[in-house]
């Protein structure tokens, strides 16, 4: 039987604010345990929350970027449960009146564009972190993360494959990065997703029973967990079994999931309106000003690359998917004025380095400025392509100035004609048979001769100039022969 897979995602993203959601403690990753907390985020008796306006603005910005409607009237609620990482024993979140609702984002899989509905985006606070057995046996709690602002983005169940789920997660990640809503550092847990998935026989109207996979913290995990869960449910149905509604935990190392709790064990959170906070009234004027200050979104940046720079759409898509890369590209183009050269260099050489070494290479030393300078030298013929790659690697490693690196490694193209002439003459003398082959019509032999000359010159000369001299010398020797 053929099955249809139905996937919805819930994405949690930490917001890039200076301070926490309800107090003035610094919002930052890590730090000595329990150094970034105060009576308010520790929920000490008598303390009260005050909403961080910037967090609200970032939530609205995310909503606008995902084509959501913004609630004129929104409120906070308490989600009650006992756990040591939650010092008030409730999480302040939004239950039925989220800040943003009813939007969509567009994803592209295999060249086909699909619109995925965004049901809602709401604001809430993060919890602390339990540390097990780090200092002898027993568990300790670090409340530094407690009260860090989060948005939860809930999509409609409108994805039908692991590929679509992955594309949605990637798209939302890049939107959040572009809008400055979140830095999306997944290794620090600032972006994580829950996958809700069900399957049904193709043609059936009624949804199948869904499961929820919690806290997936990489694009790869979203993809693999979706694929594995769809497979697991289909196998159960094929066997004539029943899929249970349950929460599952994905083990990325093993590539499989296990049940955490079933529906009967699901908690009653006893939501009710947070009496310590007033309802949030959002005026249209304020929304308009947030919209006006919205940074460029990945889609429009891609269109700009295609229309203004004439870069292929595939390349433009890949570059814009990653905001840091795209920022580097933009700046480099401004420095060197050669968008195609920049995109070609990225698509071949930079991409390979990202694939080999991870995105971190974009975090450190490589900037639009130094990359642009390298391209400028390359374009002017001051260095060769091979040299440019060496320079980039060195930049990533040390952050040195390109010019300094080229000086140090002696990578400047040599323009000394005598040097080239001597090299060409000696190569032609030493490789008589190859010259004869070429003159006999074997074009391939030219490449061999060219390679020999370049290697003799240690790659430090302009290949075009070398080629010119080589041709001239070959012509001469041909003339002598005749």
């Amino acid at each position, binding site marked *: 039987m053929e099955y249809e897979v139905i996937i919805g995602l819930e994405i949690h993203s930490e917001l890039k604010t200076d301070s926490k959601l309800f107090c003035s403690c610094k919002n930052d990753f890590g730090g000595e345990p329990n150094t970034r907390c105060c009576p308010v985020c520790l929920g000490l*008796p*008598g303390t*009260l*929350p*005050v909403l961080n306006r910037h967090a609200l603005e970032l939530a609205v910005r995310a909503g606008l970027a995902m084509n959501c409607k913004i609630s004129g009237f929104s409120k906070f609620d*308490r989600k009650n449960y006992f756990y040591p990482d939650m010092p008030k*024993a409730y999480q302040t979140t939004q239950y039925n009146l989220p800040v943003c609702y009813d939007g969509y984002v567009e994803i592209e899989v295999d060249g086909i564009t699909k619109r995925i509905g965004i049901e809602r985006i709401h604001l809430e606070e993060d919890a602390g972190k339990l540390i097990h057995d780090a200092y002898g046996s027993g568990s300790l709690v670090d409340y530094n993360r407690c009260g860090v602002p989060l948005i939860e983005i809930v999509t409609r169940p409108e994805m039908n494959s692991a590929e679509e789920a992955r594309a949605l997660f990637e798209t939302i990640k890049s939107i959040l990065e572009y809008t400055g809503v979140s830095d999306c550092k997944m290794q620090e847990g600032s972006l994580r997703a829950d996958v809700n998935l069900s399957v049904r026989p193709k043609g059936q109207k009624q949804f199948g029973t869904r499961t929820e996979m919690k806290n997936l913290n990489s694009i790869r995990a979203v993809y693999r967990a979706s694929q594995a869960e769809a497979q697991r449910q289909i196998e159960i149905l094929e066997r004539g079994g029943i899929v249970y509604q349950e929460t599952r935990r994905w083990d990325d190392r093993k590539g499989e999931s296990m049940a955490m709790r079933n529906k009967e064990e699901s908690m009653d959170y*006893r939501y*009710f309106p947070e*009496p310590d906070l007033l309802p949030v009234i959002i005026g249209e004027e304020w929304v308009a000003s947030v919209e006006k200050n919205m940074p460029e979104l990945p889609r429009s940046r891609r269109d700009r690359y295609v229309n203004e720079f004439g870069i292929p759409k595939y390349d433009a898509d890949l570059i814009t998917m990653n905001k840091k890369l795209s920022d580097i590209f933009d700046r480099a183009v401004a420095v060197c004025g050669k968008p195609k050269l920049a995109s070609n260099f990225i698509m071949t050489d930079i991409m390979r380095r990202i694939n080999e070494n991870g995105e971190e290479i974009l975090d450190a030393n490589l900037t639009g400025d130094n990359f642009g300078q390298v391209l400028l030298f390359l374009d002017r013929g001051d260095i060769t392509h091979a040299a440019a790659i060496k320079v980039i690697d060195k930049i990533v490693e040390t952050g040195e100035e390109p010019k300094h690196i080229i000086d140090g490694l002696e990578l400047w193209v040599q323009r000394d004609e005598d040097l080239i002439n001597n090299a060409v003459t000696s190569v032609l003398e030493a490789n008589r048979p190859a010259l004869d082959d070429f003159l006999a019509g074997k074009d391939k032999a030219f490449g061999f001769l060219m390679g020999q000359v370049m290697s003799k010159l240690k790659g430090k000369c302009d290949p075009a100039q070398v080629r010119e001299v080589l041709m001239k010398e070959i012509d001469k020797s041909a003339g002598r022969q005749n």
Partner: protein
Amino acid sequence: MSICNKTIKETAALLRSRKIGAVELAREYLKEIEEKNPSVNAYVTVCHEKAVKAAEEAQKLLDSGEEISLLCGIPMGVKDNICTKGINTTCASRMLENYKPPYSATVYERLEKEGAVLLGKLNMDEFAMGGSSEHTVFGPVRNPWNTECVAGGSSGGSAASVAANMTTFSLGSDTGGSVRQPASFCGVVGLKPTYGRVSRYGLIAFASSLDQIGPLTRDIYDCAIVMNAISGYDSRDSTSVNIPCDDYLQDIDAGVENLKIGLPSEFFDTAMDDDVREKVLSAVQRLEERGAVIKEVSLPSVSYSVPAYYLISSSEASSNLARYDGIRYGYRSEKAENISQLYKLSRSEGFGREVKRRILTGTYALSSGYHDELYIKALKVRRLIADDFNRAFENFDLIAAPVYPVTAFRIGERAGDPLKMYLGDIFTVSANLAGIPALSVPCGLDKKGLPVGLQLMGKPFSEKLLLRAGLVVEQETGRLSIPCEIQEHI
């Protein structure tokens, strides 16, 4: 005769005329507390050294000749659910028996800044839940008028300490009558301000949408002085209201001529002691004699106020008190072997019966399946009650009512009957549900010689008008003070 029976106004005059020094005054009060507290049990913590030190500072201010607050050097007591940095703040619960907050409540900060001198922290019903100050890990507060009787609650220690001359004024908190009812039982003035007028920052929450801090004083004038110090917007409390405060002393003696005062028929149809009814009505008559226009008014929904109040307050309490889990501070059971036991045992052993009863009620009311039928319905009733008051205030300036159906009852008499206790709150809870200000002002003694209070309610932010009318009642019925022969035997 001791200096300790004076009002703030009188004491401030003595301090300014150098008839007494702030330190001497503080010591006098500390002596009074030492003598009377064993029988009244109003204080759970007495700050001997800190009080003297604060008084020394206040004296410097007094000596500086600069313009200073009327409260400079004036002794005060603070209910033990209001955070005082580095000083035990227990909520009269085993759960917080040794809890010292690392910060101070806004109200306390403001009073400290004006130079008021903290004598100590005051006994109460555990977590402010109760109307008799019997539900406390420190033992019941005794009414100074008759130590066999309760002082009322939950701010029983706040009321008793003022009545017994163990402080010049005190702060209490009022969620459903917890300032007004003990004020009435002990014959002092108590005000519950408009919700949002006084910052709740640092008040340990019972029911966040109902709690307000209010003053308990010897007379109306003092109440206005304290209100001037503690009211106003606080950026740390999102529910505090950012509109300017009145000067509560200005025109306080403008009288009640032509003020329209409503008597809610639903309240006066309710069963109450004959003495209470008589004293309240005679106070109303005095207001009429001074020029007020008295008419009946109907508040049809107030008959549902008690169940609505208990559902809403208990629901919020079940969430507010969930943080006491034995993990970070407060009581932790020694017997627990795992996390779930730690929660269960710490909470079972740390909370008293009444608190547990409310947590259970609230948890039930918010549970799925009951949420709409109980919690949501109570919110609807709350709205109806607020509408009743809004409508009434279209035609009336004030509403007059009793504070409590009876005067102070005997300790233990009602301890086993929570329902009877809850129903007693019929006259007070609706002001909290509607968020409006309400004043309790003494209006006479019953046949047993126990104080009766008159309650005046007004529109949001009409505290000034309440105090104006309260002053007329005080002038007409006379300030209540405990007769010397009783005072000396406490």
